[in-house]
């Protein structure tokens, strides 16, 4: 699908369908927005006005509600053994009513490096947007089996999250690379064509990197920056605490596994006490199993999500930095113009473009940040409730074990 690149701000402008945007006509200020049916404006009003921003936010609500028209799932990991290497692929299932998709349903297989490619492409083509993070490429801990069930499942969940976040994003979900990723039979062929699809904006933002020093970060972005710094710190602390708890729980488990059997040994010495002692031994065994399940769950479900959010806030910080660069470039150029001695200082086109770029970036960033905050709240709510749940289940299993043994202990034994 060809995309026209005239508008300076690559917003939802590019890929449109009547269905999704039709609702916008009811929204106030929608006149400012570029209308559906592929029309691009004659370069007049900048889409990065507050009203269009409002529209974008409202659009998000719609997407979360009944107008979902894109569903993506990652499942069914399979191991592939080739001569050169062994790797895992995941099945990506896409269901969509969007016009951009030729078929209503797609099913393709992708491996981690395909996801990596997608993310890079998104970063290049959508530099003003926050791209969700991927699970780490290499396993830091060293002695973890890349093909173990637990590792693959953890990764699958993270990849699923990654695609769902893109799906939920009003801009990213329309990205052509994303479309290709979801639909192409042979992704590698597309990867080779990749170079041609680089956006002008992407290029220009890349060129901005380095060289300009920002004088003043606007208050709101400074606040975001500070927030992210503290947030990442706190998450890091929570990660360390969670790890420490798991470590202590595992050591507790080791002792329990020695403790239970001693009651069994004792039971063998006794007559009347044999059954009660054996019962206690079995009970402790059940508690040990429950504890093991708890530590496994925390390791597989809790820690990875926590770590991913640290990566996520790091991504956001780097987007903030890029934004700073764009602003810096604009300010520098503006200054350069001001210094030029002219009677009618005319703002040259490229400085205007810079301003547009910056304002666009600011708008995108704010929108993304808001979305990020919302998602973060929901994700953490779910994560922490999950942690509480797992602990409750652990205690409930233990409670059941001990309660069921009380009648056995109280039983009067027949005289032998």
């Amino acid at each position, binding site marked *: 699908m060809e995309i026209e690149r005239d508008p300076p701000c690559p917003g939802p402008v590019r890929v449109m369908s009547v269905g999704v945007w039709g609702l916008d006509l009811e929204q106030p200020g929608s006149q400012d927005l570029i209308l559906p049916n592929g029309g691009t404006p004659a370069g007049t009003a900048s889409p990065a006005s507050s009203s269009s921003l409002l529209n974008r936010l409202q659009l998000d609500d719609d997407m979360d509600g009944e107008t979902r028209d894109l569903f993506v799932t990652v499942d069914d990991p399979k191991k592939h053994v080739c001569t050169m290497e062994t790797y895992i692929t995941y099945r990506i299932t896409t269901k969509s009513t969007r016009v951009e998709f030729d078929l209503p349903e797609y099913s393709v297989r992708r491996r981690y490096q395909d996801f990596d490619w997608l993310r890079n492409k998104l970063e290049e083509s959508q530099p003003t947007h926050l791209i969700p993070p991927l699970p780490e490429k290499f396993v830091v801990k060293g002695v973890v089996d890349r093909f173990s069930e637990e590792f693959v499942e953890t990764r699958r969940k993270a990849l699923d999250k990654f695609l769902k976040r893109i799906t939920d994003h009003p801009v990213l979900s329309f990205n052509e690379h994303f479309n290709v990723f979801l639909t192409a039979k042979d992704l590698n062929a597309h990867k080779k064509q990749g170079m041609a699809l680089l956006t002008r904006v992407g290029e220009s933002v890349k060129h901005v990197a380095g060289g300009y020093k920002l004088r003043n970060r606007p208050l709101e972005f400074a606040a975001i920056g500070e*927030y992210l710094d*503290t*947030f990442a710190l*706190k998450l890091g*602390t*929570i990660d360390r*605490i969670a790890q*420490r*708890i798991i470590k*202590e*729980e595992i*050591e*507790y488990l*080791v*002792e*329990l596994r*020695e*403790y239970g059997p*001693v*009651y069994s*040994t*004792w039971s063998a*010495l006794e007559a*009347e*006490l044999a059954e*009660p*002692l054996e019962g*206690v031994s079995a*009970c402790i065994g059940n508690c040990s199993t429950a504890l093991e399940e708890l530590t496994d769950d925390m390791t597989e479900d809790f820690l990875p999500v926590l770590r991913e959010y640290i990566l996520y806030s790091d991504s956001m910080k780097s987007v903030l930095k890029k934004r700073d660069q764009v602003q810096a470039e604009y300010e520098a150029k503006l200054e350069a113009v001001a210094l030029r001695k002219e009677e009618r200082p005319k703002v040259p086109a490229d400085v205007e473009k810079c301003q547009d770029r910056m304002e666009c970036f600011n708008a995108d960033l704010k929108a993304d940040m808001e979305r990020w905050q919302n998602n973060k*709240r929901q994700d*953490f*709510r779910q994560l*922490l*409730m999950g942690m*509480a*749940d797992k*602990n*409750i289940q*652990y*205690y*409930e299993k*233990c*409670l059941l074990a*001990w*309660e069921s*043994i*009380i009648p056995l*202990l*109280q039983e009067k034994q027949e005289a032998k």
Partner: protein
Amino acid sequence: MNFLHMTENNFSLKKIEISVSEAEKRTGRNAMNMQETYTAYLIETRSVEHSDGQSVLTDSLWRRYSEFELLRNYLLVYYPHIVVPPLPEKRAEFVWHKLSADNMDPDFVERRRIGLENFLLRVASHPILCRDKIFYLFLTQEGNWKETVNETGFQLKADSRLKALNATFRVKNPDKRFIELKHYSDELQSVISHLLRVRARVADRLYGVYKVHGNYGRVFSEWSAIEKEMGDGLQSAGHHMDVYAASIDDILEDEEHYADQLKEYLFYAEALRAVCRKHELTQYDLETAAQDLAAKKQQCEELATGTVRTFSLKGMTTKLFGQETPEQREARIKMLEEQIKEGEQQLKSKNLEGREFVKNAWADIERFKEQKNHDLKEALISYAVMQISMCKKGIQVWTNAKECFSKM
């Protein structure tokens, strides 16, 4: 509190209650006139009136641990066929890191107070031991009690360790049940020791798990400061994490009572072994006496018939220094015959003694077995109840935390 019937001089019958109600730090001078610090325990005895159940304080005195030890050692000597209740440990063992191993630590003193009370109650409820005069005086005569005990000369009556060890190795025909019992008490001691050691480690680890959760309290609080909507939920959840972390102290303190109940039976194993040792001693004594008697009889026979089958010093010297006169031989035979008569009497009474010992000891052992089964079952039940309580508290705290998270 326990009720028992006690007789003093077989004249009066009282129902009494015993308690070790207080512990107090004291300083005094020891045998070598050096200053020392020790703990004294207040023993109160109350007699209970039949009709209205009201109790009247009849005696109250202070004793220290060493006096309890003296009492027990006395009982061990005078009642060797009884499984004598053990004292609480002298020094804190099987400690996990938080518990102090210091004898002056208030928690240790408190648990010792309970253990000493338990000891007295056990003695008082024993059908035979409760009648002992020295025990009665221990509860009622503060001054001079030590002297009174020592005057019984029980230390002299005590079997030496060496003698006991010797008997253990050389006894030929001990009662089978005692062999089994000794084996059982060895195994019991080993398994309970192991259990107590591991339990202490388990307690240590559990403590760690709970306390680390306290860190969540702090970090959630700090995090809530930078959040808008999530702030309240996080803050209150953090509070519940603090509650969770703090709850382990009481939980583990309760568990120490369970450990103390196990310890009592660990030490009871030693008391069982003491009875077995006594049996081995009496049995060995009996076997030796029988052997000696048999040897003398043979000697006598040889002298009478003139055949020398066994080596004897007299025989050798006779050979070397000349035959003895018939008168001398007669005298010797007569002496031997007297010794044999005496020996037969002694053997008879030793036999009787031995059988009495076995009968009485075994009766007490049966009593002990029932007590043990009952007590340990109760201990296991109370342990299970503790675990249930701990689980319920855990569910409560995490449910509260979950609700706070849900409000984020």
